[in-house]
Structures are given as structure tokens and as C-alpha cells.
């Protein structure tokens, strides 16, 4: 039977005489250029771990402390490097522990290949020890998945897995390999996959659509760009900057898109969405043309769709046809890879400045500054704010650090206030909102970008969801900066309880352990700051330390994150207090 996918030229083939399925996994990973992977051993994956031991000089396996930690680390690795993150786990609980990270990667379009061990093929369906139907369980949260029961399928299925994970709109792929397939021997040969007949990852850009988009953009009096992670995933940052500068259009970002354009860029008008900046949210409902690039109109971005940019013509640059008209109807949809469509768009655009329109953004920024930003960054009250910690980090990093945030109030503050000069620098769980993401994701990010400062900014709640990964930091000696913004609350939930549930603080107050002692238990330098005058020195000490460093900052317990678009409200009804 003819194969349904195309493999690359024969010259690039890696071939070997009889080897085991487990060794074939290693050789396949090497052929895909994998140098680092994250995982946790167990019964059904032991043959592969045995090979990891044999191949330890070629592939670095990082032992996490929980499979969820491994998958988030692989996500961090993928997000900062643009490469495919690789995870290995055993069957049963090992595999199910990956699910949160896989779901996170699916919704945030992160390329992952997850390899799980499975019980012997003869035992499938018999409720064997540590048997679970991981292919069934992972189906709704993977881009593709497959179970291998014959060793000879390993190279071609893994080739497909890497191709699917990385191509088009990236996503997670899970490959489940039965233990007998890991032991079985066969003649190995590996060719990378370059196409699958039923799968068209990148739609062709239609020039006519690009021209229509350009004409609409050129005729706009009050255009607004909203960009998302698509700009980063297609590595379109430079052409995107060219588009923004030539057209003079104010550009706002989603939290996954930030850092594609430096935060200091004069045309960068900030963040859209629930806790985004005042100007781009309000002016979404005033612009005449809204140009969405590589973003999917998530409900946290749009607020109430019935009142979202109704006055504007919408242009949607998008790689995934299923996203077009899903939430917001596009007047012009330009399908295709952002880099390609923006490259085609640039020559058609007129040079403009839109001075008056920009003034509207500046005026609204002033209002937000007076009502919110000033108090966040330069507080006059006694308690420390999360914003001033970010300000100190910016001062030391000069905007060159990658910031890995968890989920909640600190995440919104980190996204709002962190300075970014470099792309792929904001690593956060956007779509799924996975608490516990940051510490392990920062481990992966730091390992993929050892020359960059990687700062994990985490709340006291999320930190304790994957705190065990300090063990990984310790064992691998990862020079990571960890900042816990401790308000002794599950702050975001508490904020909602305060605003919408009459301050009934149900199960949101936390009695926390001695975080510094815990860090020190893992031989990580640590300190705790409770006073404003000690903050700057503490952040400096952290940022200049050679090894890993843990900094706990005790912040005001009941601060709220503003601005805020409340549930059911329109973006332009964003509250400043």
C-alpha cells in the first residue's frame, strides 16, 4: 500500500541493521535534532530509558519531579526556542499526569511530541497494571495521536509526529508505544516527514485578498492592529515591525503575542483584553478598521462579542481556517502563514502617521496612568505592590530577560508591566490558565536559552502546585530566577469574590510555609522581602547571582488588578477601579 505521507530524499536517510524499537526511538529523536527532553521513568517505558542511558552523551534527559512538571518544562523549552519540546512518560498515571500540559499546549499552539510507554500489546484492553487508554484520553487535547504496537512503525510515526507538531498551527502530538514494540528488533531507517496528503498545514496566501486588505487599510482613518502569537510562531517579527512602522498604525497585543514588537516601540499601544490597557480596549470600539494578525479573538480578549468592534471592518490574518469567523466575523480574511501574508502586504501599504488617532491613545494612557499605573509602579501606601517588583526586574534586566509567569493576578501584572526587547520572551499559560505552569516552564526555557536571564514570576498559590520542581532546578543546577509574589491569597479568585461575591472569601486565603526554608532545602539561595527599601537590592542580588535564586516578596494582601473588563461587559466599558 502506498504511504499517505511523503518522506524526504533518500540521501538523508539514517539506516542501521537490526536494532530494538527503544533504540529506534532514540535514533529517531537524534534524527530530528532533539538534544534535550523531559520525563519520568516507569515500568512500561523502561526499555526507552535503558537506551537513554546508552545515549546519555547525545541526548540530555531531564528528570522532572512529576510528569506535569516534565510537560510544562518541554513547553517552556518550545516556547522560547521555537523548537519541538519532547516529553517521555510511562503508561497509566505517568501518561495521565501529562494531560494538563498537553491541553495547555493545544490551546496555546505549542509544538510538543509526547512519548508514552504502554503495556504489552497482548494486554491492551485487559485492565493490566498501569494500563490506561491514553490515546482515547488525549484525543480531544492533541493535534494528533497514535499508538504503536510494532517496532517497525516507530520511525515513520515519529517522523509524522514531529512534522505535525511543528507545521502550520503548531500543537501537541502524543505517541503511545507498547512495551513489546520497544523490545522488538527491526531494520531501522529514518526519513523526515515533509507532507501528509490529508493535511494542509499552511493555506496559500491569496494575493487578491492581500490587495483587498491593503486597500481597506490604506483607506482607514482610525485603524488598529491587534496581534497575537501567530506573529511569533511564524517568525514574522521583523516584517511585522515593518508593517507597523510603514502604516503608522497603533498596534496592541494579546498576552501570547507580546514581545513580538518591543514594548518600548512608540507604536506599541499595549495589551488588549480583560486586564489589558485602557486605550486599546476602549478604542477597539472606536477604530474603523481592526487588523487582527495571528490571533483568535479569545473571549478574554473580546469581552462581550455583541459589543465588540461592531463599528469596524475586520481584517483577519490567520493560518487556521477554523478560526476565521469563529468568534468575530471577518470582512476580509487573509489565510496563510503570517510571515508570508505580511511580506506580500507590505509593498501595497501607504506610508502614514495617523497623528490625531495616536493622540487618542496617549490621552487615554494618561487617564490609565493616573488611575492605575502610577499606584502600581510608584505606590505611596505601605504595602508592596506586584507592579513595583516588575519595575525592579525591568531595571535590572533592561528588558532583555524572558519572563515566565503562572496564572492569576501576578500574571496580569507581569504581562502588563514587564519590558520586552526580544521576541519569544513572555512565556505564560494563556488559553488554559494552568496554575503551576511557571516553575517547570521556566526550567525548560532557561535550558533552551542558557545565555538569557529567565525570571519565573509566580503567585504563592500556583507556586505550590508544582513546587516539587525545585528538585529539578537543584539536580540540574539551573541558574533560574524565581520570584514568588506572596499575597497569602489565591488573589485573582479573591478579587472576584470581593467584586462579585460580596467579599465572601471562600477557600482563597492561604497559610503558607516558609518558602525561603524550602528553597534552601534544595540549596537554592533565597531571601524574603517585606519592606520597600530592601526590594531593589534584593532584586539586584537575584539578577546578578550566578546560580539559581529564590526571592519571595510579600505584597499587599488585597490589591486588585485593574483595569478590568467584567464578565459580560464590552471592551469599552473597561473599569479603572
Amino acid at each position: 500500500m502506498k504511504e499517505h505521507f511523503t518522506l524526504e530524499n533518500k540521501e538523508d536517510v539514517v539506516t542501521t541493521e537490526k536494532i530494538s524499537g527503544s533504540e529506534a526511538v532514540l535514533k529517531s529523536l537524534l534524527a530530528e535534532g532533539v538534544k534535550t527532553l523531559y520525563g519520568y521513568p516507569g515500568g512500561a517505558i523502561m526499555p526507552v530509558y535503558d537506551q537513554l542511558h546508552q545515549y546519555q552523551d547525545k541526548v540530555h534527559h531531564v528528570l522532572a519531579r512529576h510528569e506535569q512538571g516534565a510537560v510544562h518544562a518541554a513547553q517552556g523549552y518550545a516556547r522560547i526556542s521555537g523548537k519541538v519540546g519532547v516529553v517521555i512518560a510511562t503508561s497509566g498515571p505517568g501518561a495521565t499526569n501529562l494531560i494538563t500540559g498537553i491541553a495547555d499546549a493545544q490551546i496555546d499552539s505549542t509544538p510538543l511530541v509526547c512519548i508514552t510507554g504502554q503495556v504489552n500489546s497482548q494486554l491492551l484492553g485487559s485492565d493490566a497494571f498501569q494500563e490506561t487508554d491514553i490515546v482515547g484520553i488525549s484525543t480531544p487535547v492533541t493535534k494528533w495521536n497514535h499508538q504503536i504496537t510494532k517496532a517497525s512503525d516507530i520511525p515513520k510515526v515519529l517522523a509524522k509526529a514531529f512534522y505535525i507538531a511543528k507545521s502550520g498551527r503548531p500543537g501537541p502530538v502524543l505517541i503511545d508505544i507498547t512495551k513489546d514494540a520497544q523490545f522488538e528488533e527491526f531494520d531501522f531507517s529514518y526519513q523526515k516527514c515533509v507532507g501528509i496528503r490529508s493535511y494542509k498545514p499552511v493555506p496559500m496566501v491569496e494575493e487578491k485578498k492581500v490587495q483587498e486588505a491593503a486597500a481597506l487599510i490604506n483607506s482607514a482613518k482610525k485603524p488598529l492592529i491587534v496581534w497575537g502569537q501567530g506573529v511569533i510562531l511564524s517568525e514574522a517579527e521583523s516584517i511585522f515591525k515593518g508593517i507597523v512602522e510603514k502604516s503608522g498604525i497603533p498596534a496592541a497585543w494579546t498576552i501570547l503575542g507580546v514581545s513580538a514588537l518591543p514594548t518600548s516601540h512608540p507604536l506599541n499601544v499595549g495589551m488588549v483584553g480583560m486586564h489589558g490597557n485602557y486605550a486599546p480596549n476602549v478604542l477597539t470600539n472606536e477604530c474603523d478598521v481592526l487588523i487582527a494578525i495571528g490571533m483568535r479573538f479569545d473571549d478574554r480578549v473580546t469581552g462581550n462579542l455583541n459589543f465588540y468592534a461592531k463599528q469596524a471592518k475586520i481584517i483577519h490574518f490567520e493560518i487556521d481556517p477554523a478560526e476565521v469567523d469563529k468568534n468575530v466575523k471577518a470582512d476580509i480574511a487573509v489565510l496563510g502563514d503570517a510571515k508570508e501574508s505580511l511580506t506580500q502586504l507590505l509593498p501595497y501599504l501607504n506610508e502614514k502617521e495617523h497623528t490625531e488617532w495616536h493622540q487618542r491613545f496617549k490621552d487615554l494612557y494618561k487617564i490609565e496612568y493616573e488611575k492605575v499605573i502610577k499606584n502600581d509602579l510608584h505606590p505611596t501606601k505601605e504595602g508592596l505592590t506586584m507592579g513595583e517588583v516588575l519595575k525592579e526586574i525591568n531595571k535590572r534586566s533592561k528588558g532583555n530577560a524572558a519572563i515566565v509567569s503562572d496564572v492569576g493576578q501576578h500574571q496580569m501584572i507581569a504581562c502588563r508591566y514587564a519590558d520586552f526587547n526580544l521576541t519569544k520572551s513572555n512565556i505564560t499559560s494563556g488559553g488554559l490558565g494552568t496554575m503551576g505552569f511557571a516553575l517547570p516552564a521556566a526550567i525548560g526555557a532557561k535550558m533552551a536559552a542558557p545565555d538569557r536571564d529567565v525570571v519565573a514570576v509566580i503567585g504563592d498559590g500556583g507556586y505550590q502546585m508544582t513546587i516539587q520542581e525545585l528538585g529539578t532546578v537543584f539536580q540540574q543546577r539551573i541558574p533560574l530566577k524565581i520570584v514568588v509574589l506572596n499575597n497569602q491569597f489565591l488573589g485573582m479568585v479573591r478579587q472576584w469574590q470581593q467584586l462579585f461575591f460580596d467579599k465572601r472569601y471562600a477557600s482563597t486565603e492561604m497559610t503558607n510555609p516558609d518558602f525561603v526554608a524550602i528553597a534552601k532545602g534544595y540549596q537554592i539561595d533565597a531571601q524574603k522581602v517585606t519592606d520597600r527599601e530592601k526590594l531593589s537590592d534584593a532584586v539586584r542580588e537575584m539578577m546578578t547571582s550566578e546560580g539559581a535564586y529564590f526571592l519571595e516578596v510579600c505584597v499587599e494582601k488585597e490589591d486588585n488588578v485593574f483595569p478590568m473588563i467584567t464578565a459580560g461587559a464590552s471592551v469599552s466599558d473597561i473599569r479603572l477601579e
Partner: protein
Amino acid sequence: MEENKTYTISIYTENNIGLLNRISAIFQRRHINIESINSSVSEIENISKWTIVVQLTEERMKKIIGQIEKQVEVIKAYYHREDEIIYQESCLFKIKSELLFEERQIQNIIKESNANIVTVNKEFFVLEKSGRSEEIELLHRELKVFGIMQLTRSGRIAVSKEEMKISKMLEAFSN
């Protein structure tokens, strides 16, 4: 609000074990009831064709098609209005044999409905009826009064009036 209409979906796919789960999850997540589903071979070797019947607004239908086509092993998905397809369903009725001889009216019903008697033995006979849903429903109503021992009904199968250019798509890939 746009109202729900009956749509028939044709999906051409690679033959893959896990795909049923993936496709049905798309409907399940959105609380869309699948009225009937059928999977079979297609006119192209090694390509499966699925026929799914649902009641939806056209706007939702388009979004669902987008989600289906997004699956790696789906080659192409189409949705059709009722007037865009030729379709058939099939139904088997198992009925006591004595009724065939004692109730004269049953024989007339069988004749008029163009149903076929598949088998007859001492205890029961099996009646097969293929046609559009209304025809099958009518026959069901008529036979119900006499008592039906067993009844089973197939999903809809359909061909479209318009061409679905699957072979061309596959050729484009091999070239």
C-alpha cells in the same frame, strides 16, 4: 436567531482507528446530537467516507466543518442541504408470521410501501424497506398497530448532486 435545519455531512478520511473519537468529540463538546452516522468505503481505494446527519444552524454548521477539516486525517468535509443530495435509509422489521396470513391489511401495506420480504419462517418474517426517512416512518406507523417484534434502522447514506473533488485533491498531493 437563525433556525436549525437538517444537514448531511460528507467526510472523506484516511482509514484510521482513532478518528471516530476525534470527530464525535467535536459534536459532543458542543452538545450537538448526531441524528445518524455511517462510515463506509468510498469510491477511492483506502479512503473512508462518513455520512453524518445533524440539525444545526448554517452558521454553526460552517464552524463544525472547519473543526472537522482541521483533523490531520480528514481529507475534506462538506455539508449539504436536503435538496443537494440523493439519500436513502434502510430499516428492518421483524414481525410474527401469523400476522402475514391473518391480517390481510399487512399484505397491502407491504405491497404499497415497496418493502421487500427478506425471509419468512414459521415464527416470524423480516421486512426490509429502503427509502427516505418519511417513507420509513410511514411504514413504521402502519405496522406498529399490529405489533413489531424487532425494529432496526440504519443511518442515512447519501451522494451529492455536485461533484466532490477528492481524487483531484489526492492527485495534487502525489504530484
